[in-house]
């Protein structure tokens, strides 16, 4: 008997009394002639006694024939087994009834008692169900109400009982008490790091756990457009504290020598760029594994040098990297700097701050953690001890993990400053007015007598004349910011160091929108403003005390608590006025860094420029709320993606498929999308096979690059039709066996500036209405020779392109970028309004196989792959031939893979990705959306360099750079213009 049958039988027998049998086999040897099944003896014995009393009724006569067997037998029995030879002469009513009493009562019991697995309303037909039926029994039909009420009560009882067993939870009031709440928060952030603004975000945002942090993804309220408007006309605020800062200290030449291994001049400015090295600008570089320039990229980082102090070659450098990049970057930095000696944490002053106390507390009772019942007890026990401290910085890191490494040979020290510095990003043309409104340069403190030894840093600095003049200069420059109207007016990447007052002191009573003030602007000295705009901030003013660890720790430790501040506010004579004198603790060193906006392309230049605000840790919320009170919008991860999309800048890690972090991202994304896809019922899923979309959830870049390399190598420069491409593809499959033996070269993303410039020039239409013929200097025009020489260097490369759709269409991610046929371009030339060609629908040959497998699970082992007869369409021909090649190549693996067939998705191995559809694919889109700044669909993606050059060679000058774009869920191709922006 199969497992399912056993289960069914068990279910049926659940409420039967033990006396009732339910035979599984029909072979019934025991031929009991008795009326009663289980009491034959008593029945017989009783007969003589009560014989006279009982008369055999005709009705009982008929009845007695039915219980012909010892138990219930289901179904029809051929052997007529029930009709035994000897029939009873008479039936005693009493015995008869008694014998069946058990059965009857069992039956009644079964009828009365509902099985607990289904609720009452679930038995109702769908059209009679109502919302919240389980909650409110009055929504049920009258006849079912009683049953439902009874069930509900029972459920409530059961629930309360269970809870009681589980944990004696404290009252809500007790749980919300500050100390207990803090303990609970500390426990919760041991796995994922919380930013300082976590609680603020968690109340307003959809939180996601990513990269070891809890981050706000998007607000729970509707604000997509409002956030866009904020970015383009006012200010959008983001918490970027999850970015990791790595500090390098050492002699300048040694640092540069070590770091030069990680970068290449060909890909743009490096760590040694003159302006960045002076500390006046923030720079950004692409980092590679040491000495592996084109082939093994790690990811993009931004860096900031501390300005030189007089007569010292000792320099300090901050490298800011994305958390997914950090795990690759840090070991690489340690190798190039030869920093293998971990400095044990007790030596580092990090240990002195209260963070560790808070960290150590939950670790006191680690064994109590897994048992849910004892959880509360532990917190109670702790509450009696010292009060919990708020975790500042990284709460997940173990105490023994080193955060600092020193090199014995060249004296370089690496510090991991993750979560030590808070970083806020303000995006938008008015972000400087928000800053000017919120921050105020620190006021001096002359009134402090010198004799009083003060542990605070600011009074000590006030006594130093040089430091105060510097502070005055910085404050002057900060005030000039009032005179500018747009953040984009300043040189990009400008750095300004500053010391400010506690912004909580000047908090407005109501939320107001910070706007530039014309009157204030005119007060500013025109000459100074001009100088700032042209030359940026002079070098000494880029200095800030946030660079010094001792000052940072001092500021963090001596922050006035919110409670204390409120008490001081309540003592002010005029309610709502500014606190004066400013408490001594309220001076914070900060660093302001200008972020350049859109730097590429012709339109919307410097869109999305803004400022980054760097603060010492612990001060996050103290600055966050005042900023929010200046009318900024808050964005999450979602908005930072849109920001980079509108800026036409690649977004890490999404748009770095050749970096390890990018690959990890792709895998995660694929798993996530596939999961989502599988959650749909099969009938509601998109059948991607029918749409001719080979890989809807990921982009097989490696395969694409390889295929195009072979196509170009074999095909030369002749016109590529699909049939030829297909032929080449077949060769590819045959060649695959060879290529497997030798390790195939990895694809890379082209980042060589010169090569990109050349490609960019080739992509542009040379003669087009409204566009000046671009002066390309000595760049050679596109020709066969130039292309061949280009490809010899970059055949396996992908290139980052910006796609805009001039007419209709909203590109999705993983949309295909295809090559238009000459006919398509002709059609485009004839009627401008045509939407573009259509892809003929493909056939899903796997559907039948899935069906067959479902019907007969054993037969799938025989790989009878005979694709349905393809009809005359070309696409289907290709499709069928692809299938054939695949099937003939390895039928074994094919049948194996059929075990994990998903309806509507291509199983591995994928067919040729380039020539799968009627238009040849050259690349995919990685992010795309309707762009509100351009007013049309815009996308960013990668194309194969070989494929692109091959296409460009065959295109006429007016149609240069025209490609087709097709979404994975659509059959409609749209015309798209690609731009390569350097």
């Amino acid at each position, binding site marked *: 008997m199969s497992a399912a049958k056993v289960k069914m039988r068990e279910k049926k027998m659940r409420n039967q009394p033990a006396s009732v049998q339910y035979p599984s086999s029909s072979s019934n040897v025991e031929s009991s002639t008795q009326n009663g099944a289980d009491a034959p003896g008593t029945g017989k014995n009783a007969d003589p006694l009560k014989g006279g009393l009982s008369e055999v009724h005709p009705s009982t006569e008929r009845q007695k024939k039915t219980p012909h067997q010892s138990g219930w037998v289901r179904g029809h029995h051929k052997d007529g087994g029930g009709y035994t030879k000897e029939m009873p002469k008479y039936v005693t009513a009493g015995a008869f009834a008694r014998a069946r009493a058990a059965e009857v009562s069992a039956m009644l019991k079964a009828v009365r008692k509902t099985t607990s697995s289904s609720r009452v309303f679930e038995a109702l037909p769908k059209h009679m169900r109502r919302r919240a039926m389980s909650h409110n029994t009055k929504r049920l039909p009258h006849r079912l109400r009683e049953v439902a009420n009874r069930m509900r009560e029972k459920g409530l009882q059961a629930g309360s009982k269970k809870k009681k067993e589980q944990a004696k939870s404290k009252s809500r009031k007790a749980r919300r008490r500050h100390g207990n709440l803090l303990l609970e928060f500390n426990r919760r952030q041991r796995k994922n790091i919380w930013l300082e603004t976590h609680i603020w975000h968690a109340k307003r945002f959809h939180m996601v756990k990513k990269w070891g942090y809890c981050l706000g993804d998007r607000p729970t309220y509707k604000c997509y457009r409002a956030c866009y408007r904020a970015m383009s006309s006012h200010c959008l605020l983001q918490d970027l504290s999850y970015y990791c800062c790595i500090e390098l200290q050492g002699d300048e030449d040694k640092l540069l020598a070590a770091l030069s291994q990680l970068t290449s001049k060909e890909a743009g400015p490096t760590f040694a760029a003159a302006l960045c090295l002076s500390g006046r600008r923030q720079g950004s570089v692409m980092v590679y594994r040491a000495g592996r320039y084109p082939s093994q990229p790690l990811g993009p980082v931004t860096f900031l040098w501390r300005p030189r102090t007089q007569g010292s070659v000792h320099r300090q450098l901050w490298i800011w990297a994305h958390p997914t990049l950090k795990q690759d970057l840090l070991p690489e930095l340690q190798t190039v700097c030869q920093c293998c000696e971990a400095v044990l944490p007790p030596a580092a002053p990090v240990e002195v701050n209260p963070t560790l106390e808070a960290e150590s507390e939950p670790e006191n009772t680690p064994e109590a953690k897994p048992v849910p019942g004892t959880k509360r007890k532990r917190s109670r026990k702790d509450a009696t001890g010292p009060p919990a401290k708020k975790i500042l910085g990284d709460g997940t890191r173990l105490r023994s993990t080193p955060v600092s490494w020193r090199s014995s040979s060249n004296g370089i020290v690496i510090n991991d400053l993750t979560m030590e510095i808070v970083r806020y990003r303000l995006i938008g043309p008015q972000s400087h007015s928000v800053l000017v409104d919120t921050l105020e340069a620190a006021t001096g403190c002359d009134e402090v007598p010198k004799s009083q030894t003060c542990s605070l840093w600011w009074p000590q600095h006030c006594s130093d004349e040089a430091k105060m003049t510097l502070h005055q200069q910085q404050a002057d420059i900060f005030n000039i910011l009032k005179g500018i109207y747009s953040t984009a007016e300043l*040189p990009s990447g400008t750095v300004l160091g500053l010391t400010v007052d506690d912004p909580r002191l000047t908090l407005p009573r109501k939320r107001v929108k910070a706007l530039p003030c014309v009157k204030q602007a005119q007060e500013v000295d025109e000459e100074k403003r001009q100088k700032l705009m042209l030359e940026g901030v002079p070098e000494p003013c880029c200095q800030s005390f946030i660079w010094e660890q001792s000052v940072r720790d001092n500021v963090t430790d001596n922050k006035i608590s919110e409670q204390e501040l409120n008490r001081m506010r309540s003592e002010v004579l005029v309610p709502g006025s500014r606190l004066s004198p400013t408490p001594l603790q309220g001076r914070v060193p900060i660093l302001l860094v200008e972020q350049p906006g859109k730097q590429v392309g012709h339109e919307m230049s410097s869109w999305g420029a803004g400022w980054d605000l760097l603060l010492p840790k612990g001060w996050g919320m103290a600055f966050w709320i005042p900023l929010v009170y200046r009318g900024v919008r808050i964005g999450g991860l979602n908005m930072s993606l849109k920001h980079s999309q509108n800026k036409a800048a690649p977004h890490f890690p999404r748009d770095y498929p050749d970096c390890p972090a990018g690959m990890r991202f792709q895998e995660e994304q694929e798993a996530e999308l596939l999961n989502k896809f599988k959650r749909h019922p099969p009938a509601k899923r998109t059948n991607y096979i029918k749409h001719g979309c080979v890989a809807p959830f990921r982009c097989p870049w490696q395969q694409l690059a390889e295929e195009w390399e072979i196509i170009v190598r074999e095909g030369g420069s002749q016109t590529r039709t699909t049939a030829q491409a297909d032929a080449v593809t077949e060769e590819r499959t045959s060649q695959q066996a060879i290529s497997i033996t030798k390790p195939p070269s990895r694809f890379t993303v082209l980042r060589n500036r010169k090569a990109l410039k050349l490609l960019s020039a080739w992509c542009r239409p040379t003669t087009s209405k409204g566009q000046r013929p671009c002066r390309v200097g000595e760049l050679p025009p596109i020709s066969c020779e130039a292309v061949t020489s280009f490809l010899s260097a970059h055949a396996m490369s992908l290139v980052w392109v910006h796609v805009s759709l001039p007419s209709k269409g909203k590109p999705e991610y993983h949309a295909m970028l295809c090559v238009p046929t000459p006919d398509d371009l002709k059609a485009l030339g004839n009627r401008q309004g045509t939407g573009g060609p259509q892809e003929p629908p493909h056939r899903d040959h796997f559907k039948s196989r899935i069906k067959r497998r479902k019907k007969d699970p054993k037969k799938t082992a025989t790989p009878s792959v005979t694709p349905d007869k393809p009809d005359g369409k070309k696409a289907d021909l290709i499709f069928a031939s692809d299938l054939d090649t695949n099937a003939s190549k390895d039928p074994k693996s094919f049948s194996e893979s059929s075990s994990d067939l998903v309806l509507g998705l291509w199983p591995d191995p994928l067919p040729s990705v380039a020539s799968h559809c009627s238009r040849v694919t050259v690349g995919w889109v990685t992010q795309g959306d309707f762009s509100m700044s351009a007013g049309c669909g815009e996308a960013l993606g990668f194309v194969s360099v070989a494929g692109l050059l091959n296409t460009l060679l065959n295109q006429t000058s007016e149609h240069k750079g025209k490609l087709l774009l097709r979404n994975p869920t659509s059959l409609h191709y749209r015309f798209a213009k690609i731009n390569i922006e350097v």
Partner: protein
Amino acid sequence: MRTVFLFQESSSLPYTLRKRLPRKLPKRRNDVYVNMKTDFRAQLARCQKLLEGGGHREICVHGLGLAINRAINIALQLQASSQGALQLAANTSTVELVDDLEPEDPDEAGEPMTRTRNNSAIHIKVFYPDAQ
């Protein structure tokens, strides 16, 4: 932003030219900045809407450089379509623009440079004269 190769007279190093956006004063509701990208009719319609539907007695049409022509054109069109009810008052000015010159090879060629140049601008006030 247009990126063009330049060759400085002093050195033969190539520079990349980036133009910064012109300074923008805070905009009132009745300010119209004319550009060359938006359709002419759309810009004209916007001005008409401001004067008729928007309830403004006067608007300011600003044009910079190449767009001076178009600004004048718009103002004249507005006047013509109002049958003489509107009056114009034109002012010209000079706007200072900033260009960034970034060296192609930043490691060797030292400082990036900035330079200023001037461009002409026109500000046309289109208004209904006070009925006196």
